[in-house]
C-alpha cells in the first residue's frame, strides 16, 4: 500500500492539486464565493494527500527520487525525498490543512473589499513553494522555488493593501528576504564551484573536495542566509513587521511553517551534506540561539499588539530550536553521535510542536481580531464570555507554548534541556560554559514566556471589556472553530504521544548522513517511559497526564465530601466604594512594566509625558494628559542604522561617476567588458 502511495504520480498529484487551487481561484476571481471555495477545496485536498504521502514516506525505507528534465542544460527538476523531507512535508501539509479549513470562514470578511482570486492564487502557490523547497534536490531548482515561496508570501503580506503600514512591512520583508537569498546563492554557488555539480545528492557524494576554509565560509553564509528566513536575531527585523500584516491564516503558516524551511536547510547542509563540522559551528549556533530566545521573549513580553507579540515569540522559539541544533552540531563535531541525535531530536520535536501551537495561537488571534477589528491588546478584555471556544483553544495554545505539562511544548523543551545538560557534563571548559549560558538563557526564556502568555491570554480574554469592540464581539463561525479545535487537540495529543514520536524521530535522524547507525541516547521503553543518557533523566507523558487527572479527581472527591451544602452567590468585584470602570483594570502596558523596568538595560524603555492646559497662560487646569511608553529598537539603532549610513555614504561617492554623459557610460561598459574578458581568461 505504501509503494502505491509513494509513486511519482501521487507526489505530482499533490503539486497539481495546489496548482489547480491557484489557477481556479484566479479563474473565478470575479466571484468571491466561488474563488474562496475553489482555492480552499483544492488546498484542503492537497494537504490531505500530502499528509498521507508523508506518513507513507516516513514509514518506508526506500530512497525516493523523481526527476523531470528541462530544456535548459543546467536546470533539472530533481526531487529527493528522504525521511527528513518527508517530516517537513508532514508539517507543511498538517498546518496547511487546518489553516485552509480556518480560511474558508475567515476570508469571508474580505468579500467585496479585496480580490479573493489573488488571495487564493498566492496562498496555494505559497504552500506549493514550501513543499518544493523541502524536496528540491537541485541548486537552481531550489533557488527558483525558494523565490516562489518568498514572493508568494510577500504578496500575501501586502494583501490588505489599503493599509499603508502593510505595504511598508512588505517592502521590509522583500528587502530582507532578498538579502538573505543573496547569502544563500553565494553559499550554494561555492558548493557548486568545488564539487562541480548542481545536484545536492552529487554534492553530498563529493563533499570531500571542498577545502575546510571554504566550508567555514559556506557555513557562515548559509547560517546568515537561512537564518534571515528563520528570523534569528539580528536578522529578524522583518518578522515582527511582516507576519502581523498578512491575513491571520497566512500569518499562521508563515510563523508556523515558513520560518522552519530555513531550519530545514540548515539541517540539510550542516548535517546531511557536511559531515565533519568543526566544534565552533555549534558554539556559534548556540550563542545565536540563546540570544534569539532571550531577546525574542523580552520583546514579546513588552509588545501590545497581539500578532506582533506572537511574531516575537516565534523568534524566541526559533532560538530554542537553534539551541537543540547547536548542541547537535557540537556533539557531532566530537563524534558523540548518540547525544547529537538526542539534541537533533529535541530540535525536530520543537519544530513540530511550535508549528502546531504557534499556528493555533495565530488562528486564535485572527478569530479575535476579526470580531474586534483591532490588534491592540489594550482594547480587548472579557472576550472569554463572548467567545468561549476561541478562548479555550487560545488557552490550550498558551499553555503549550509556555511549556506546561502535559501539553507538547513541555516535552520538546525537556529534551532540549537534556541535550544542554549533557553538554554541560561532557564538554571541555570553554564550550562547557557556552552550554551553561545556553541552559541559563533557556530557563529564563521559559519563565518569561509564561509571563508573556499570562499577559496575552489574561488581558485579551479575562476581566471586563475595555472597548466597545470587545463588548459586542461574538463567537466565530464553525470553520474557524474547527481549525482551532483540531490544532488544540493536536497540542495535547503530541504531548501524550511524545514517547511514540521520539521513536519516529530516531528513525528520521538515522537517515541523515552525519548520523548513520548510532546508539540512541533517547530510549523509549514499553510503558512510554522516555529515558535519556543512560537513565540520567526519565519521564513518561501518560504518567504525567494521569497524575494530573488523578489529582483533579481527588480534589473533586474532597470537595464533594467536605463541602456539599454550600451555596454560591453572585456578587460584585470589590470596588473600594466606587464604580468599577474598565480603566481600573490592569493594562497590558502595566502588566509588563515591572519586567520591562527590570530589563531596562536591554529594552531601553522611554517615557514621555505630555500635558495640555485649558488656558495656555494660566497653567492650573489641565485639559488632557498623555503618557507615551516606548521601547527603543536597539538593532535599528546600533546595527541597521550604521549599515544604512555606510551604504548612503558609499552611494554619495559612487554618484560622482554618474555624469549623465552617454559617452562616459559607453566607456564604462567597454571597460567592464575588457575586465570580464581578462578575468575569464
Amino acid at each position, binding site marked *: 500500500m505504501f509503494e502505491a502511495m509513494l509513486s511519482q504520480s501521487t507526489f505530482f498529484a499533490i503539486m497539481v492539486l495546489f496548482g489547480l487551487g491557484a489557477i481556479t481561484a484566479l479563474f473565478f476571481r470575479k466571484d468571491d464565493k466561488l474563488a474562496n471555495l475553489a482555492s480552499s477545496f483544492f488546498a484542503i485536498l492537497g494537504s490531505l494527500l500530502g499528509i498521507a504521502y508523508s506518513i507513507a514516506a516516513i514509514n518506508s525505507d526506500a530512497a525516493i527520487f523523481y526527476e523531470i528534465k528541462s530544456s535548459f542544460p543546467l536546470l533539472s527538476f530533481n526531487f529527493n525525498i528522504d525521511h527528513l523531507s518527508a517530516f517537513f512535508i508532514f508539517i507543511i501539509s498538517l498546518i496547511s490543512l487546518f489553516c485552509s479549513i480556518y480560511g474558508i470562514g475567515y476570508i469571508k470578511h474580505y468579500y467585496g473589499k479585496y480580490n479573493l482570486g489573488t488571495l487564493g492564487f498566492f496562498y496555494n502557490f505559497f504552500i506549493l513553494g514550501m513543499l518544493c523547497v523541502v524536496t528540491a534536490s537541485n541548486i537552481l531548482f531550489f533557488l527558483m522555488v525558494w523565490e516562489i515561496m518568498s514572493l508568494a508570501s510577500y504578496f500575501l503580506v501586502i494583501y490588505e493593501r489599503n493599509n499603508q503600514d502593510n505595504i511598508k512591512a512588505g517592502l521590509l520583508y522583500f528587502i530582507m528576504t532578498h538579502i538573505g537569498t543573496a547569502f544563500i546563492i553565494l553559499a550554494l554557488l561555492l558548493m557548486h564551484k568545488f564539487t562541480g555539480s548542481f545536484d545536492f545528492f552529487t554534492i553530498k557524494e563529493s563533499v570531500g573536495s571542498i577545502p575546510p576554509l571554504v566550508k567555514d565560509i559556506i557555513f557562515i553564509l548559509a547560517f546568515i542566509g537561512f537564518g534571515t528566513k528563520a528570523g534569528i536575531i539580528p536578522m529578524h527585523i522583518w518578522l515582527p513587521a511582516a507576519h502581523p500584516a498578512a491575513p491571520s491564516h497566512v500569518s499562521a503558516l508563515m510563523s508556523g511553517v515558513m520560518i522552519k524551511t530555513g531550519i530545514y536547510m540548515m539541517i540539510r547542509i550542516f548535517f546531511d551534506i557536511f559531515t565533519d563540522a568543526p566544534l565552533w559551528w555549534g558554539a556559534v549556533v548556540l550563542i545565536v540561539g540563546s540570544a534569539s530566545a532571550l531577546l525574542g521573549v523580552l520583546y514579546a513580553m513588552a509588545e501590545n499588539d497581539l500578532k506582533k507579540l506572537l511574531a516575537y515569540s516565534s523568534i524566541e522559539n526559533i532560538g530554542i530550536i537553534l539551541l537543540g541544533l547547536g548542541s547537535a552540531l557540537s556533539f557531532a563535531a566530537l563524534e558523540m553521535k548518540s547525544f547529537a541525535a538526542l539534541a537533533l531530536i529535541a530540535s525536530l520535536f520543537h519544530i513540530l510542536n511550535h508549528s502546531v501551537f504557534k499556528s493555533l495561537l495565530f488562528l486564535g488571534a485572527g478569530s479575535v481580531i476579526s470580531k474586534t477589528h483591532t490588534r491592540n491588546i489594550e482594547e480587548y478584555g472579557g472576550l472569554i464570555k463572548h467567545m468561549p471556544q476561541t478562548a479555550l483553544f487560545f488557552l490550550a495554545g498558551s*499553555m503549550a507554548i509556555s511549556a506546561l505539562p502535559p501539553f507538547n511544548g513541555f516535552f520538546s523543551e525537556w529534551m532540549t534541556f537534556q541535550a544542554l545538560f549533557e553538554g554541560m557534563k561532557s564538554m571541555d571548559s570553554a564550550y562547557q560554559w557556552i552550554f551553561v549560558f545556553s541552559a541559563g538563557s533557556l530557563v529564563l526564556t521559559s519563565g518569561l514566556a509564561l*509571563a508573556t502568555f499570562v499577559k496575552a491570554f489574561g488581558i485579551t480574554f479575562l476581566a471586563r471589556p475595555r472597548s466597545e469592540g470587545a463588548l459586542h464581539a461574538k463567537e466565530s463561525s464553525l470553520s474557524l472553530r474547527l481549525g482551532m479545535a483540531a490544532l488544540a487537540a493536536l497540542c495535547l495529543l503530541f504531548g501524550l504521544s511524545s514517547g511514540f514520536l521520539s521513536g519516529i524521530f530516531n528513525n528520521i535522524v538515522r537517515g541523515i548522513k552525519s548520523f548513520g547507525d548510532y546508539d540512541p541516547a533517547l530510549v523509549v521503553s514499553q510503558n512510554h517511559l522516555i529515558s535519556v543518557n543512560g537513565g540520567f533523566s526519565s519521564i513518561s507523558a501518560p504518567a504525567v497526564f494521569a497524575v494530573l487527572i*488523578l489529582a*483533579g479527581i481527588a480534589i473533586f472527591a474532597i470537595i464533594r465530601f467536605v463541602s456539599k451544602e454550600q451555596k454560591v452567590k453572585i456578587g460584585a468585584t470589590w470596588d473600594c466604594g466606587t464604580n468599577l470602570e474598565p480603566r481600573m*483594570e490592569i493594562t497590558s502596558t502595566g502588566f509588563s512594566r515591572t519586567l520591562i523596568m527590570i530589563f531596562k538595560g536591554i529594552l531601553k524603555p522611554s517615557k514621555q509625558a505630555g500635558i495640555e492646559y485649558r488656558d495656555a497662560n494660566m497653567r492650573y487646569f489641565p485639559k488632557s494628559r498623555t503618557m507615551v511608553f516606548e521601547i527603543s529598537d536597539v538593532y535599528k539603532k546600533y546595527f541597521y542604522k550604521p549599515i544604512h549610513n555606510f551604504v548612503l555614504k558609499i552611494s554619495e561617492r559612487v554618484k560622482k561617476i554618474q555624469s549623465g554623459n552617454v559617452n562616459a557610460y559607453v566607456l564604462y561598459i567597454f571597460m567592464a567588458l575588457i575586465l570580464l574578458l581578462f578575468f575569464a581568461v
Partner: protein
Amino acid sequence: MAEIIIWIIQILILPALSPLCVGVIRKIKARFQNRQGASIFQPYNDLWKFFHKDEVISRDASWIFRFAPFAIFGATLAVSASIPIFASFLSNNFTGDILVVIYILAIGTFFLALAGLDVGGAFGGFGASREMTVSSLAEGGLLFSLLVLSFVSGTTNLFSISGTIDSLSLASLLPVVLAFLGFFIVLLAETARFPFDNPSTHLELTMIHEAMIIEYSGKRLALIEWASANKLLIFITLGSSLFFPMGIAHSMGFIAIAAAILFYLLKVLVFCVVIAIIESSIAKLRLFRLPDLLLFSFILSIIAIGLTI
C-alpha cells in the same frame, strides 16, 4: 502491599501536614512579637471553616476563576507524589524529574495569575503582574540549584538524588552549600515569604500573593490557602530531602520508615523555625530590589555548577 501503604502515606503526608507547618511558623512569629499567638492547629480550623461557608463570586468572573483553585491545588498534589519525602527507595521514574516538578508547579502559578486577572479588580491585576515577575526570575535559580545536585549524584530523578546525596565526598560540599543558599532564596520567593512578600497583610503596596486571591471565598479560598501551604511544605521538603537527606529511608522496613518520618518532621521543624526567624528579623524588600536577590540566587547556583562540572 507494603509498598502500596508507603505510597499512600507518601501521598497523604504532605497535604496533611502542610497547614500545621503554617501554624508553627505563625506561632513562632507571634512569640517573637511577644504575643501568645493562635494554636498551631489554627490553620486546620480555618480550612474547615472556609469549606463550610457559602461563596461569593464576582459577576465578572469566568470559568477560569472557578476552575483555577482546582488546578492550583491539583498541581501541588501531583508534585507531592513526585518528590522524595521520607523514603528514597520509592522509585518514581515517571514524574519524579526535576523539570517535571518545576513545570507542574508552574501550572499552579499560571492559573493563579489568570485568576487574579479574571475578576477585573484593581488588586488582582497587579498581583498577577508581580507574581509573574518574581516567578519568571526565580525559575533560573530553582532549576540550577537542583541541577547542581543532579550533576553531583548523576541523575535528575529526585528520588535517586535523595538516595545518593548523603554519601558525598568532601569536595562536593562547597557547591552543594552554595546551591542550597541559592535554593533557599528561591524558596522564600516562591512561597511568598519575606523579603519577597508579606503573607499576613493586605496592604496594596506590598502584597503579591494575597492580591491575586482577594476575591476568593468559601471552599475555593480554602483550596487556595491549602495549596499555598502545600507549596510551602513542598519547597521545605525539597530542601530537606535533597540537601539534607540524612535519615531518609533507603530500604523497606518498619523501623527505617518510622525513623525516617520522625527525621523528616524534625527537619521540617528546623526549616519552619529558620523561616520564622527570618520573617521576624528582616524587612520586606522593595519590588525593584527583588530581581537583585533572585539574580544573586541564580549566580550562586551557576558558580556551584561551575564547581561541579
